[in-house]
Structures are given as C-alpha cells and as structure tokens.
C-alpha cells in the first residue's frame, strides 16, 4: 500500500493523487484528507492530479467525491495539474466534472484562493540591539 501524504502550508492542504489508485487506496486517501482537514482547520484544499496519465470514470469519481467531501467540510477545493490529453479523454468518456474548480498550476490555484507568493527577506538582528530597549 502506498503512503499518502497530506502537506500543509498555512491554511492550505496539498494532496497528490497517486497513479494507479485502487478502491481501497482511494478510500484511505479521502479519509486522510478529511482527518487532516478537521485537525488543521484548513480552509482550502489543493488536489494535484498531474501524475495521472489517464483519468477513467473510476478516477474521475474519486476526484469529484474527494473534492465534494472536502467542500462539505467547508473548504474551497481546487484541482491542479489536469493534462490536455486527460481533459479531452475525460470529456469523450462523458464525464463532465461540473462542480469541480480547477487551476492550471499551483500558482494559479493560490491566486484563486486569494493567496500570493511573497518572498520576505529574513533580517537578523544583532544580540545587543535586542537588549537595547532595556538599557536606558
């Protein structure tokens, strides 16, 4: 059984859907995500599906059920990493995924969630400057 990791970044949780998922793994994936969501009170979930070469109806159901469960627990869910080929195949297959919000990449997903990537420079204060206020 593959290990499922849910990564946390502030109020956002990241989940990568592994390739070659089976029923049991799909279920534990959903459970792992919801547990983490309850634990961390995350308000946004980003689900990465870029490792999926094909999305069949089973996989499409796993993705939409997982997204739906997280939405019910009051998080905004965004799917990232859908490839052009997987998209075309999915539509030909007849899956519409109507209630799913997607973003082309992680940056776009963060943008949709209202977050931006900001680099902050770490400043290190010398020790004496910290004790300075107490001197007088």
């Amino acid at each position, binding site marked *: 059984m593959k290990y499922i990791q849910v990564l946390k970044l502030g109020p956002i949780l990241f989940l990568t859907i592994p390739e070659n998922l089976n029923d049991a793994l799909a279920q534990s994936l959903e459970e792992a995500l919801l547990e983490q969501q309850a634990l961390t009170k995350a308000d946004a979930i980003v689900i990465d599906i870029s490792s999926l070469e*094909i999305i069949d109806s089973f996989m499409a159901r796993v993705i939409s059920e997982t997204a739906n469960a997280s939405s019910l627990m009051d998080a905004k869910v965004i799917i990232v990493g859908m490839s052009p080929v997987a998209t075309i195949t999915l539509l030909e297959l007849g899956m*519409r995924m109507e209630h799913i919000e997607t973003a082309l990449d992680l940056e776009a997903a963060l943008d949709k969630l209202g977050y931006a990537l900001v680099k902050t420079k770490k400043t290190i204060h010398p020790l004496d400057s910290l004790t300075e206020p107490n001197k007088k």
Partner: protein
Amino acid sequence: MISINIVDEDDIIYARSEARRVAEEKGFSLMNKTRLATAVSELARNIYRYADDGMVQIEPISEDGVKVGIRCRFIDNGPGIKDIHQVMTDGFSTEKSLGYGLPGAKRLSDEFSISSEVGKGTSIEIIKWK
C-alpha cells in the same frame, strides 16, 4: 497476442498499461494511446465489477498491410447484459452509480462491438487505429 486475466484491481492497471505499451510500440500518438488505455481501463473494470472472472486480450492488427491498429477483446463469464441498448445509452451509468462506461469506451474507440447472453457472459471487441 497478450492475454490478461482480470481477477483483482491490479489486473485492470496491468491491462491498461499493456495496451498503452503496445500502442507506444506501434507508434500511436499520445492522444490515441491515452484513448485506448482509458477504454481498456473502463472495460476491464466492468469485468472486475460484474463478472467473477474474465480476460482481456490485446493484439496489434494491420489492414491491407498499411493500416495499423490494436484490437482488444474483453471476455467474461459474468451475468450478461439483459438490455444492451440500455447500457449503451449515455447517462444510464457511469457518473452516478457503478460502472458500465460502455458509451464512453465506445466513443474512445474507432470500432466497437458487443455481444452478450444472460447467464453466459459478455464479449466486447474494440479497435483503435493508429
């Protein structure tokens, strides 16, 4: 010809990656490789879900020595399908409950034929041309 018995879920994954590998060898485009692998995944999953045992056969074919394709057969000894017309109708199946992505698998294939007998089993053949 490659024959894969479909017993558990990993066999579905094996069948679709074999279809993909053969398509790759025959020089299929990424799009058509993916269409074929997805159709194989759908139909192999039907065997896993609805029949106790069944198999997938994958075979490269050629027409007039020019046209190159891959033929896949899905044969099971399951309960069979009572109303083929109904299961071939969009919306009867996939998204809501269990399986039967038959109309979808048909759209992803270039040729599709199905025969089924209640109590005996189902046989589906698809062809994807390069």
